[in-house]
């Protein structure tokens, strides 16, 4: 088991957004999360990355590290938790004043203080891998949405995380650009990355994931292998959600 999450709870004021979530992520597995808007998918991902501080819950990692959010973790603990995962945002959030290459080198070079020649080689390699070898010196506004998101993926990979988190990575894209981003994610899947992906692309979810979770109102309603959850869901709410997506 790569990561076990137990009793994860998060509220914004009165609003309980995550209600006692239990989750297991196996090493090399791909977990996709589906569910209606507002069900807490983004918040769950952000809690895994501690961009949002959970109110309660425990993380247990494969290497024995445990974090109990019963008391607020130290800055150092937060940093080392974040170090484990790379995050890809729905709206890319690239640094607009930096080139594609600089976006990717920023983490390893400035934060991790690795040698420049090593970081340059790493970044060029990653940009090549996401198909942007010829766009390295362009600024984000000179790139299409699909290209920007691929830079976003390279930037997240550059810190060499153990886990990749994707929050609706293709939702902001024009339909014709969705494929190029999904292809990059599929490549990562084939390389054996451990990933958690929030998505509305059901076909993609079916193709890449080992496990699918359906969330609603801050709870995991149903989970299992993709065929089971996506093709023959047991829960009424899952059935209704899939129905709505397939026949809008």
């Amino acid at each position, binding site marked *: 088991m790569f990561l076990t999450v137990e009793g994860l709870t998060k509220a914004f004021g009165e609003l309980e957004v995550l209600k006692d979530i239990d989750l297991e992520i196996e090493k090399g597995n791909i977990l996709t999360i589906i569910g209606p808007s507002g069900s807490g998918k983004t918040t769950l991902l952000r809690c895994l*990355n501690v*961009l949002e501080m959970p109110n309660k819950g425990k993380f247990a990692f494969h290497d024995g590290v445990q974090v109990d959010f019963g008391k607020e973790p130290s800055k150092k603990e937060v*940093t080392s938790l*974040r*170090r484990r*995962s*790379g*995050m890809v*945002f729905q*709206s890319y*959030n*690239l*640094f*607009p*004043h930096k080139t594609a290459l600089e976006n990717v080198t*920023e*983490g390893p070079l*400035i*934060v*991790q203080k690795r040698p420049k020649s090593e970081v340059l080689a790493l970044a060029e390699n990653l940009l090549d891998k996401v198909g942007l070898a010829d766009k390295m010196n362009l*600024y*984000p*506004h000179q790139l299409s949405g699909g290209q920007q998101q691929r830079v976003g993926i390279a*930037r*997240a990979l*550059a*810190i060499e995380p153990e886990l990749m988190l994707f929050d609706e990575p293709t939702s902001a894209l024009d339909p014709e650009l969705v494929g190029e981003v999904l292809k990059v994610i599929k490549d990562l899947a084939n390389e054996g990355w451990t990933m958690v992906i929030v998505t509305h692309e059901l076909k993609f979810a079916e193709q890449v994931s080992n496990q699918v979770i359906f969330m609603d109102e801050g709870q995991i309603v149903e989970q299992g292998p993709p065929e089971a959850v996506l093709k023959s869901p047991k829960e009424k709410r899952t059935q209704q959600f899939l129905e709505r997506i397939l026949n809008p």
Partner: protein
Amino acid sequence: MTITADMGGWELFKNSLWPMIQGGIKYTIPLTLISFTLGLALALLLAIMRLSNRKYFTIPARMLVSAVRGTPLLVQLSIVFFGLGSIGLTIDPFPSAIIAFTLNVGAYASEIIRASILSIPKGQWEASHTIGMSYWQALRRIVLPQASRVSIPPLSNTFISLVKDTSLASLILVTELFRKAQEIAARTYDFMLLYLEAALLYWIICFVLSIIQDRIERRLERHISN
């Protein structure tokens, strides 16, 4: 070049030009540049203090900004020079003016800088944190460079206002451009001519600055065309 009371208008104009320009070069321009630079540093500090979530940073910063913005510059200058002088803390005219103008720029520019930092989307902070940056790293490398582009147009207005405001330093005996005009006018009684001449010089300086401002803004627009 001597100046006498019986001089003709054109001659007086010509002969007082150089003393006024000298006042500008020796005092108006250094006063502006030094106060603006120090003021920006103060402004950045105040902006960061106000963005903190600790009361012992936010409250003093807010009080200082509110006090400076809520009182006339002339009164501030008088407090620093005459006020402090009268309680035994004598500061020369020029450094007094620097202190007052620095405080002034600091207070006004801190609002501009604070607003520009707040205008940077939260996603920029979050992306910085996910690649491992601390608050200070994110501020310095990601947020401030973008915020500075947003704040350059309003800050250049502050700069141009400062050039004009330095004329108030004449009241605490700094022999800057306008003080020179006053001195000559006191001898020749030709107030209209000399004050118009001073106005013209300020106008030329500000006109040149506004052209530079325009250029910078156009270049910035090209950079943030996304």
